């Protein structure tokens, strides 16, 4: 009958959660958060712990990797999932964030003499830079639809990578070393050192939580509605008074901002970046993560982002007979993607809207 009734009459965990009173929901969220922060110690859980943690790669580092992948997935979800703008070059923003930080803080940078900043000081500037990059990409591509947009965004990321590789200022493969870590000390020791990745993961987690809150607020507002309308029928949206240009640009800028956050964190943790990291495959992987998780739904994007980082990392050190599965990780990963998508075309955790849509559509398949 009412909007709520038909949207919430869902079974499963989500249905259960939706039916709980607010205080129960809050408790569930709080527990989930605490558990997330305790993830670095997952290995200590008897029996299942060792199954979860990665072997060939330090578990907290793997968690940190997951955290920036999740950030990227959240950002790309805004662009692709909400606004329906197919972006195949999302890594470009990640690169801009990382390079922005490096240029301002690394001793290798031409700007070092003038700035030589600490990580924290560089963050706002680097993020502003990525938002500008988002607008620069957004502006000329506004008129493009669907797959035309896809190739232009892909090209944009490639241009960034080629520039990073081929211009002396951006140092190419030589890269920027000695990028400072985030600030803070604890018992006289720096919190963000080189050997322990746990603090980085926690930092990533905090950023993720803030991003989730922000994106959720946008989604459940006029902004989110406008994005959705643009995705469904751009011309009709405009005729209904939606300022499509503005909202598309916002989608790009917000997506870029979140991607930039990922880049900033990445640079701060690694201390070294070069042009090798920002390859196209990276963008494509993140996109796969978003869609696999459930495009248009944050929980889905988070799960998808985490999985694309976790699956390959977890495959390290597992061997089948004599062959190390790690070598096959991307091949296996490709299989996993196909299987997941065929079994759940709407993604692992789709938005209610998409879930319904697919359910309906499935029943409508004509005889073949």
């Amino acid at each position, binding site marked *: 009958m009412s909007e709520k009734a038909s949207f919430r009459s869902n079974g499963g965990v989500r249905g259960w959660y939706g039916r709980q009173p607010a205080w129960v929901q809050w408790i569930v969220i709080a527990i989930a958060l605490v558990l997330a922060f305790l993830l670095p110690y997952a290995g200590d859980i008897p029996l299942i712990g060792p199954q979860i943690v990665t072997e060939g790669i330090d578990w907290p580092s793997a968690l940190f990797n997951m955290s920036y992948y999740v950030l990227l997935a959240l950002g790309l979800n805004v662009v*692709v999932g909400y606004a329906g703008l*197919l972006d195949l070059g999302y890594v470009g923003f990640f690169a801009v964030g990382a390079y922005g930080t490096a240029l301002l803080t690394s001793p290798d940078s031409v700007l070092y003499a003038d700035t030589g900043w600490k990580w924290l000081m560089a963050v706002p500037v680097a993020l502003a830079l990525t938002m500008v990059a988002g607008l620069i990409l957004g502006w*000329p*591509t506004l*008129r*493009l*639809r*669907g*797959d*035309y947009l*896809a*190739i*232009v965004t*892909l*090209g*944009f990321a*490639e*241009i960034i990578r*080629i*520039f990073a*590789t*081929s211009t002396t200022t951006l140092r190419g493969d030589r890269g920027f070393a000695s990028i400072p870590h985030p600030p803070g000390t604890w018992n006289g020791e720096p919190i963000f050192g080189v050997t322990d990745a746990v603090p980085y993961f926690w930092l990533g987690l905090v950023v993720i939580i803030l991003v989730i809150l922000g994106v959720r607020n946008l989604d459940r507002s006029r902004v989110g509605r406008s994005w959705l309308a643009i995705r469904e*029928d751009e*011309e009709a949206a405009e005729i209904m008074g939606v300022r499509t240009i503005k909202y598309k640009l916002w989608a790009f800028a917000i997506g870029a901002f979140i991607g930039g956050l990922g880049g900033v964190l990445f640079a701060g943790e690694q201390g070294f970046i070069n042009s090798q990291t920002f390859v*196209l495959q990276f963008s*494509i992987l993140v*996109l*796969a993560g978003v*869609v*696999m998780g459930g*495009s248009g739904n944050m929980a889905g994007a988070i799960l998808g982002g985490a999985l694309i980082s976790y699956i390959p990392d977890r495959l390290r050190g597992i061997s089948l007979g004599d062959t190390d599965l790690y*070598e*096959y990780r*991307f*091949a296996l*990963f*490709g*299989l*996993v*993607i*196909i299987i997941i*998508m*065929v079994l759940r*075309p*709407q*993604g692992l955790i789709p938005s209610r809207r*998409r879930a319904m*849509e*697919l359910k309906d*559509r*499935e029943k*409508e*398949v*004509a005889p*073949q």
Partner: protein
Amino acid sequence: MDFSGLIDNFGPLTVTGLAQGAIIALFALGYTLVYGVLRLINFAHSEVFLMGTYACLIVWGFFGLDQNSAAPSVGGMLLYLVIGLVVAIIASGVTALAVEVVAYRPLRRRNAPPLAFLITAIGASLFISELTGVLTHRNQRGVPPIIQAKPLFTIGDTTVTNLQLLIIVLALVMMFVLDRFINGSRLGRGIRAVSQNPDSAALMGVNKSRVIALVFLLGGLMAGIAAVMYDLKIGVTRYDAGFLLGIDAFAAAVLGGIGNLRGALLGGLLLGVLQNYAAGLFGSQWLHAASFVLLVVILLFRPTGLLGESLGRARA
């Protein structure tokens, strides 16, 4: 900038660019065909091509040919060329159909949203190329000298080799044949109908599944030819060869107007030539950057590519 680098080599750069562009164009046809009908980028098309590059090498291997062999006689050359083409076409065609059956058909059965198709295609692409990578230890594989490049004729200071001519002519001929088929034949009309309105096409008696399979197959055939030409021109293949050239081909398809066959040809040739000019002018490291800059600039002025979409719908 190195103007002399461009001007001194203008003729030769144009010719090799056209040859490279012809390969890209043949490759791009697969994107355009599938896009025309299903409205989605077949990300796995790069691996359809990849399988072609390996298939002909393997069959040549059966004849004892490898990168170290001596060049065959003219008769042998023709024989090997035809065999290579046939095998590559079969391999690419089969791969294309396999991708359709494994990655697309189950989703179509469930009426899945378009992005889902894109992602399974990415999965299939990853699977095939990575598996190839693991099996070949990510090593390159050299191509036997089936066709020894020999200058055929010279215009000004530009020599055109037999190989270059073969590639360009073959691409033009295939384009022409395909164009006639799509625009002139009954099946071709079926393809266009499905691309514009699948439901109505069914109401006209068009077998959608067959059309879709056909389109994948046609794309595969073209990719197979492109693959053999690539092998002969580049001289080496590797597990990531498809991905690398795939980006160019995808760009070419879009440049010409994705869904438009002639657009793919135009886009491919343009891209091939432009990349070489850019390499001459700015240095080889800028070759891909230049093609993307061109792409962005052209799409700014023509948001649906140079020739627009013709298989596709004109107005929503």
